């Protein structure tokens, strides 16, 4: 699960990391008030940042500076309601614009290959780390946290020295350790600070030179969905503004669902088989309307929920059900389908293929209920494409 920048910053702050203050505004008026407070506290400018769960906000015009309350209100007004990669901006973050001396990159991520937490740091901050990895791979330094003990002090120090943090190395050590703590405390997959920045404190307006400080200027956190059940505190961070009602239904039913642009609804058990089913639908000349994995051991109620998800898309004119029973039992899926069809309002042609565990009983039930069935997956895909074409014709 992705969470908003402002929420990510809250998690870091709770671990004692240096994150400059911010406010979240839902209207231009709120943004103006927040800007007024920041300017009154000595900021020369404020930054207004769209809160959306996609990258590239800056390029899309979702991050702007303002030098006055009027300007802040105007800028916030333009950003709020803007669409960034199909997501409508409903909130902005307002903060004093930092006086940046130098930008760094620091992140903690779950490294699947090494099976450990990986820390990545770079003196090339403020740009996407993927670009740095391609352009100047030697500019990135890596440290794997100990699999039993987490990030050890000396590992954090080596990271900080390799990042050339200079006099800020101790702050860098504390932040690196804080990222790993954040990751462990909330079961995050990724905790990314970009930029981690040395900023001048006090600003010119305050009249004194004051010091420099290493702070987290931006924050990105993604959470392990498998661990959400044990983190009720994180469920509160789910952003209802950004979640499609269909996505919400899918999540609540425990179904993995991604809406696509085609016409053939797919209901499959297993992610790999679901992708394969989509691949074969496309190969047979059709267009899948969705990716849908009902998961292992799916029962009748899950099948019914999956059916509702698929039919919620008005473009769907055929459904392909492909179940290969293992932990999932074919007869239960068949019963679920029969029940779901009896309740569904829209009549859409359906091709059902159930093989594996308890497939004989499933076949019997489906035959009794006069479902159209298929033997091989290729055949099922072909029949579904034909059905879809037929309806469209």
């Amino acid at each position: 699960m992705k969470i908003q920048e402002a929420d990510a910053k809250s998690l870091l702050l709770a671990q004692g990391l240096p994150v400059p203050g911010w406010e979240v505004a839902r209207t231009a008026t709120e943004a103006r008030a927040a800007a007024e407070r920041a300017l009154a506290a000595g900021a020369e400018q404020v930054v207004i940042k769209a809160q959306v769960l996609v990258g590239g906000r800056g390029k899309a015009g979702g991050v702007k500076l303002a030098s006055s309350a009027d300007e802040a209100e105007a800028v916030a007004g333009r950003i709020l309601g803007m669409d960034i990669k199909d997501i409508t901006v409903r909130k902005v973050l307002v903060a004093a614009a930092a006086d940046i001396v130098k930008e760094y990159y620091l992140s903690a991520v779950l490294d699947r290959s090494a099976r450990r937490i990986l820390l990545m740091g770079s003196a090339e901050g403020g740009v996407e780390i993927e670009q740095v990895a391609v352009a100047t791979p030697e500019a990135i330094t890596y440290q794997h946290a100990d699999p039993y003990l987490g990030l050890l002090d000396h590992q954090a120090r080596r990271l900080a020295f390799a990042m050339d943090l200079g006099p800020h190395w101790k702050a860098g050590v504390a932040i690196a350790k804080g990222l790993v703590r954040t990751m462990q405390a909330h079961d995050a997959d990724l905790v990314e600070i970009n930029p981690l920045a040395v900023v001048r404190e006090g600003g010119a307006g305050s009249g004194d030179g004051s010091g420099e400080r290493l702070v987290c200027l931006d924050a990105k956190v993604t959470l392990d969905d498998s661990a959400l059940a044990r983190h009720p505190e994180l469920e509160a961070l789910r952003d209802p503004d950004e979640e499609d009602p269909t996505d919400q239904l899918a999540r609540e039913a425990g179904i993995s669902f991604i809406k696509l642009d085609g016409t053939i609804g797919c209901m499959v058990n297993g992610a790999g088989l679901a992708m394969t089913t989509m691949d074969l639908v496309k190969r047979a000349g059709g267009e899948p309307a969705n990716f849908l994995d009902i998961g292992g051991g799916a029962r009748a109620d899950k099948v019914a929920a999956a059916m509702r998800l698929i039919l919620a898309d008005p473009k769907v004119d055929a459904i392909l059900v492909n179940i290969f029973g293992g932990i999932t039992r074919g007869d239960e899926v068949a019963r679920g389908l029969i029940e779901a069809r009896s309740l569904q309002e829209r009549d859409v042609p359906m091709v059902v293929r159930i093989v594996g565990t308890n497939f004989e009983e499933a076949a019997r039930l489906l035959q009794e209920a006069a479902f159209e069935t298929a033997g091989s997956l290729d055949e099922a895909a072909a029949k579904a494409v034909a059905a879809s074409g037929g309806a469209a014709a």
Partner: protein
Amino acid sequence: MSILVGRHTRLVVQGITGREGGFHAAAMLEYGTLVVAGVTPGKGGQTALDGRVPVFDSVHRAVAETGADTSCIFVPAAGAPDAVMEAVDAGIRTIFCITEGIPALDMVPVVQAIRDAGARLIGPNCPGATSPGQAKVGIIPGSVHREGRVGVVSRSGTLTYEAVQAMTDAGIGQSTCVGIGGDPIIGTTFSDILALFAEDAETDALVLIGEIGGDAEEQAAGWAAEHLADIPKVAFIAGRTAPEGKRMGHAGAIISGASGTAQSKVDALEAAGFRVAGSPTELPTLLRDAGYAG
């Protein structure tokens, strides 16, 4: 021979008195697997599967009493990492963890402990392994198999069954079929399994079933290019038409750079001498094209 599981496997099922554990333990027993023990804390002294399998309070007890050498875990996610630790501590050296939904960070110390002990963990969130005609451990439906000499390795669950069924339907049997699991942190990789097949005298050809995301297939291709030049090899990659950015996490993308796409995987596998199928049903034909005569 076969790999991982076979005629001599003495299996303990952790979580045998649960719904899934009981159902699949029965299927394993029926397939011919030597299910010698079950473990459910607090139910030691009882029996499972209609009195056919004794239940113990701990894996240590099960090992001491029955000589179990392999474990299959159906314990719910909250207790599964500890169940793996218990198995390895009790001296089990081949551990299948079927459980899905285990938080990834929970597995980090567990896979390290497995390495430290010189044990092998397959999974979690894996369907297990079957050596047709000998034994099956896990949840792969026994009906899809046929005895033979092709080794199959996959990180999908049901897609594995699909691929194996296609082979069986075409008259091509398997030495062992292994599902390594699709979780972020797993105990055994494609390369590990390929290395086991490479040493197996009764495996004459290989099938690898991958999917988009991560770089496990690319790494396996690299290993195969070096060590498996002369054996017929075919592969299938799921997700060729999946829209970008929907399944691949940012994490995986950062680390593995350009890899992770279906194209990257297909390219790597083809460069390593794999023939890559467009549908699971094409696997038998490609195997024969690659020179497999079994």
